[in-house]
């Protein structure tokens, strides 16, 4: 199993637990083998079930070639090619490379204002700064929004206001096993001469939280879009197995389910694709002060407190304007913050009132 987030020959820092946990999620080739003959049955039953249950929604824009078991002749193949080439320009213009310094992934813009869907192991957390690169090389600053750590879904928003090219979602989640699809992504990182790479395939395996296609993916494609032949987004690339036919995507439904919470910058669920930052850390030992507030008994060197200039003996009386009652209250307020947050402390040093800003760290 490979991680699709990659730099050009640069090892990318990914939490060690990532590989371990992902390994367990690898679809077992053995079980597929055993299913062998029975899987034909599965396929047929699944197709009947899914078409039957959603026929009403799908009539109309569902390409006829998706209703065939396989394309039968050159004419069918040409219809697939025409559909792909018709929707490709727009899909390409909305597909971005996401540069995080040490490595890069991909993403896709889904709103005119620059909301991007990507993989959680690409965005790497909530509130992280990154650069997105359009196919023509234009760069924009962006910030990561919410994510679902358990399924590898994440949002990123371009910082600058503007009008961006975007794609439609398969909002009714109509994708079915066997559908023809295509994958885009900046494989191995942004390359202007090459541009975004497109690969064709079919949906070969469907589960609630993962869909597989035989569109071949590689490092750098992570977070990139998987489209149906109408150019609607049906998934986001996440990971690959050892075989060329194991390319795994987060279904768009997973994003839709968590949409509002992700917009509110929620860190949903736990690992394996991204680990929550530890509780915020200041780096002091305190004792309660009789008049309210706390007195610093010790300040760690090279801790956020030490760096900001707090000293042993300082009394802290307010945090972000809130009066501190005692040590317990103070500690609770710090823990509410996230690493990277800046807090304003009102302190008394030799009876003189001062204000010090401290950027909270991670233990």
């Amino acid at each position, binding site marked *: 199993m490979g991680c699709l987030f990659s730099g050009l020959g640069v090892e990318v820092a990914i939490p060690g637990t990532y590989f371990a946990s992902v390994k367990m999620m690898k679809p077992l080739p053995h079980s597929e083998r055993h299913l062998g003959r029975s899987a034909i049955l599965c396929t047929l039953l699944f197709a009947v079930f899914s078409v039957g249950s959603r026929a009403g929604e799908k009539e109309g824009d569902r390409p006829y070639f998706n209703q065939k078991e396989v394309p039968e002749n050159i004419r069918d193949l040409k219809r697939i090619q025409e559909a792909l080439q018709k929707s490709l320009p727009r899909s390409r213009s909305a597909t971005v490379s996401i540069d995080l310094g040490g490595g890069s992934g991909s993403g896709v813009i889904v709103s005119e204002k620059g909301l991007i869907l990507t993989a959680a192991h690409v965005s790497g957390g909530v509130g992280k700064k990154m650069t997105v690169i359009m196919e023509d090389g234009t760069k924009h600053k962006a910030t990561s929004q919410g994510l679902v750590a358990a399924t590898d879904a994440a949002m990123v928003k371009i910082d600058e206001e503007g009008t961006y090219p975007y794609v439609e979602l398969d909002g009714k989640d109509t994708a079915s096993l066997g559908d023809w699809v295509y994958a885009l992504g900046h494989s191995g990182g942004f390359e202007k001469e090459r541009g975004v790479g497109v690969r064709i395939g079919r949906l070969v395996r*469907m589960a609630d939280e993962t869909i597989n296609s035989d569109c071949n993916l590689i490092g750098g494609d992570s977070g990139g879009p998987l489209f149906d032949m109408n150019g609607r987004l049906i998934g986001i690339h996440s990971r690959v197995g050892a075989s060329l036919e194991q390319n795994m995507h987060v279904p768009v439904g997973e994003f839709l389910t968590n949409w509002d919470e992700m917009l509110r910058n929620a860190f949903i669920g736990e690992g394996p694709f991204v680990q929550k930052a530890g509780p915020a850390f200041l780096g002091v030992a305190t004792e309660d002060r009789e008049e309210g507030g706390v007195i610093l008994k010790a300040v760690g060197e090279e801790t956020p407190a030490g760096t900001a200039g707090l000293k042993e003996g300082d009394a802290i009386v307010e945090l972000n304007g809130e009066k501190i009652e005692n040590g317990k209250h103070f500690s609770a307020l710090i823990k509410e913050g996230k690493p990277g947050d800046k807090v304003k402390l009102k302190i008394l040093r030799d009876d003189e009132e001062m204000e010090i800003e401290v950027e909270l760290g991670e233990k």
Partner: protein
Amino acid sequence: MRSSLLGLIGFSASLACAQQQFGQLEGEFRLNGKETWKAFEPVREVLQASSAVIYGGWKSVAYGVVVSADGYLVTKASEIDKIEEISVRVDRKHFKKVEVVATTVEWDVALLKVDGEELPLVEWAEAEPVHGTWVVSNGSTTRRDRRVRVGIISANARQVGGGRAPVVLGVTLKINDESGGLSIDKVHEGSGADEAGLESGDIILKADGIEVKSMEDLQEVLGRKEPGDRLTLRIKRGEEDQDREVELKKRESVFEEEKTRNDAMSGRVSQRRSNFPRVLQTDLPLSVRSVGGPLLDLEGKCIGMNIARANRCETFAIPTKELREIIRDLMNPVQGEEGADEEEGSEDPEEE
């Protein structure tokens, strides 16, 4: 009896579970499955007639493109250069007498000749294919039948590898601060430079009598050379000027490419997969031994020749426009030498 019945029930139960959670498409219906390939039959017939299978002994090592009715064909040079007992099959005919007529190291293409008669040729496509165009090429073969692999055009046609000369001295160079010339920083083991006794600290003055002051100067001289050619280097060692004759070797045989994480997930890739003046990129899942054959569109017209398996999702092909020029040059060596006299920029020239 009882136990097998129980087994059956157990099996059905797990099957029902599998249906709901893991609906999956059987292999033959996938992009490169047997049932899907059937639709490409008219294009396969072109491969059957006009592609060549190159054998080393019993094993097929590459494919080729038939370019003349009397038996000229082109293939990937580096896949056949160490093959003994080379033979060629076109359609069902087996040719045991094969002559390697000429090669170009710039493009890694070899021109072969067999005693053919009225071999059907590929038809060249007029226009270059755009993104999303179906492509069809040789995938595997039996003695009787060629089989296809299918994919699409994936990315912009472009130069890969920064246009560096395909042959190298086998040294890492740096600009000498005092003289401003090129000095040798490191000599790579087993390279021509190593065998010629070049040493770290030697300053390069001339190559084949031409004054060399920059990486570009040296690139220009190397760009005209083939593997196995010799280059006379005038170097300055200490206070003394010396002439050394250096055998030029293929870049990939001296400098091992840096293995990336992406390579680790790619399976086997072509040894020479970079440093081509211009290629098409497809998502064809070819094996290392299935490059060299024609790249066809749905009309069966030839849009290029597969030249390298680059990684898990990229296969490169020489576009038809350039391929036809290469073939013309290889069949007429005098023109070929003029054609190689091109100046190319270099982005990463420290290894020469």
